[in-house]
């Protein structure tokens, strides 16, 4: 089956609703309700290349299919990495898969973080909760091409210390001298030595020049709303801010209609939007 590339330069499968069979080759428990699955194509063909910020539709056969962002290193040619939080029927089935089990994969779909537009800029990555997962490929890109960027900061917030995603990796990132890593939790017991407070409180204290800065933001919608407000106050313009949105999706290709917000399909016009374009989403209740 010959597949093509669409006008955005992204993968365009000929049978866009037909998944490919993948096998779970690794499973990591991240938090009490979040797992990372490593997947390999059963027929060993190389993966279509993806861009940081894109997602796949993961299909637990007999249960259903949901959009999950790609959270691994996009240089990897043979293994797909997805971090999934067990919150619904399909995510529960996916989190219940074990090494050797099968899963259907369609994708990659959607828009990507604009990595080339960030070059020679200060980059602020703002993540909340599981929102770090779709940001991780962007962070890998920043680290792999560190010289292309000015100062790089990661501001990450979780609800509690036990909910921090990729804690070992965050520790490793903290050891990079050319990377600012700030972590906070909404609430913690006395044993927590770190910062307490919502993620927005980290932004004004970043030692970064906002005049030449851009930000990538992903997390719960309420967190995006306040993080953007804080970034604007910090001195960024709407054009400097990119966010990643989430909506119900049944297809990933603009056919099912579920993910519409105003004139946009989150699946194909997003999930990554420049904030100047996404501002409207936050202005109308129940849009």
């Amino acid at each position, binding site marked *: 089956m010959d597949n093509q590339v669409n*006008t955005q330069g992204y993968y365009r499968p000929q049978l866009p609703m*037909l998944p490919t069979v993948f096998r779970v080759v690794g499973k990591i428990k991240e938090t009490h309700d979040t797992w990372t699955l490593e997947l390999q194509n059963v027929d060993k063909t190389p993966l279509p290349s993806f861009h940081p910020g894109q997602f796949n539709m993961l299909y637990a056969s007999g249960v259903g299919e949901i959009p999950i962002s790609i959270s691994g290193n996009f240089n990897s040619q043979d293994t797909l990495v997805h971090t999934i939080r067990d919150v619904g029927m399909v995510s529960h089935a996916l989190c219940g898969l074990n090494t050797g089990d099968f899963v259907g994969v369609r994708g990659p779909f959607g828009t990507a973080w604009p990595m080339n537009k960030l070059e020679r800029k200060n980059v602020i990555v703002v993540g909340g909760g599981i929102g770090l997962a779709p940001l991780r490929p962007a962070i890998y890109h920043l680290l792999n091409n560190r010289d292309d960027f000015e100062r790089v900061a990661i501001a990450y917030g979780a609800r509690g210390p036990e909910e921090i995603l990729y804690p070992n990796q965050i520790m490793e990132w903290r050891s990079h001298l050319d990377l600012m890593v700030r972590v906070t939790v909404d609430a913690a017991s006395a044993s927590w030595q770190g910062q307490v407070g919502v993620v927005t409180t980290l932004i004004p204290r970043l030692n970064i020049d906002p005049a030449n800065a851009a930000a990538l933001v992903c997390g719960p919608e309420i967190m995006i709303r306040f993080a953007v407000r804080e970034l604007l106050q910090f001195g960024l313009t709407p054009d400097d801010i990119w966010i990643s949105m989430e909506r*119900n999706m049944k297809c990933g290709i603009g*056919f099912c209609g579920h993910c519409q917000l105003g004139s946009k399909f989150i699946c194909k016009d997003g999930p990554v939007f420049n904030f100047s374009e996404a501002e409207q989403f936050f202005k109308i209740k129940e849009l």
Partner: protein
Amino acid sequence: MELKVLQLDQLNDLIQVLIMDDYQLIGPKVKDGVISYDSIKSSSELPIGIIDHQSPGKYALQNIQSSRFFGYTVSPYSWKKYLYPPVQSLFKVNRNGKGISFEVTNDEPRYAFLGVRGCELNAIKIQDKIFLKGNYIDPNYKRRRELSMIIAVECFNTCETCFCDSVGSGPEIPDGADIVLTEIFEDGDHYFLARSETEKGQDIFNHLKLNDADDKHVLIKDAQLERVRTQLKRRVQTTGLKSNLMANPDHPRWDEVAERCLACSNCTMVCPTCFCMTVEDVNDLDGTTDRQMRWDSCFTSEFTYIHGGNTRESVKSRYRQWLTHKFASWQDQFDSLGCVGCGRCITWCPPGIDITEELEALSIPSNQYKKGE
């Protein structure tokens, strides 16, 4: 192509030629008290002498003792039922001890649609934009569309609910039909004027001995179409419509219409352009799964479900999504309106909500709007 005369008894010849040519002929017939688009084997099955009365929340058929074949306006069903079926199998999941596999079965029928109205052909062209003209293509839709033959029939009547003219999609038949027919009753003569518009249509015409029409026929045809146009009473004011809807998400009329709307999704089910769908697994006890695509509606509560709840909880927000999509955001997405003025959503709305009336009320500035206007 030039205009031909198709005599009354040649209508059945046309049907037989299509069937001989391996088309599954779908046309209008009376079924379950409505005009249904269904499998047709001969012209005697057509709704001879039947007209339809449609008004907000009401539908009735009447036998007017005429020999007219296409006196009705539009069926509650649209051709979408065939080109984009309500339930489609995407693939089957087979499981064995070693793993799973996904099996696609495509066996698309070859349809000939007889009696496609101007508004309906425009609706098909709108769905073409969604499924064929974007970055992704629906291969099943593409196949069905390529195989199908469209025989459009110009309207002779209108219903109270029709408003095609004001949204630019009728009553004339747009480009895209293979054959266009006009049923004529003139001075006791009953016949059809026929024009083939594609090679596919011409191939069918080659099997029929059709005489050329003359200038008189052209005049009769044009006069009939103009008479139909003047019958259209309902209108939508499309100028400034998009910007007005986009600018008024909090117009008081949304609350008012939400009080009447049952969120039953009838309007989206009868709409010939609505394309929303969901995908479900149908699991069999034999261990196989059929993955099916089904029509869905933005009026259902779970339509916007993500963990933590639905992003459109209120009926107001769902109605607003539907109407704003049809008349405003659709223009950004597909460069046309999402409405062809067929009036089905008005007829089949249980409380009889009339979108033309809602749009008019929404065009009144919020601060000047008085409830119940």
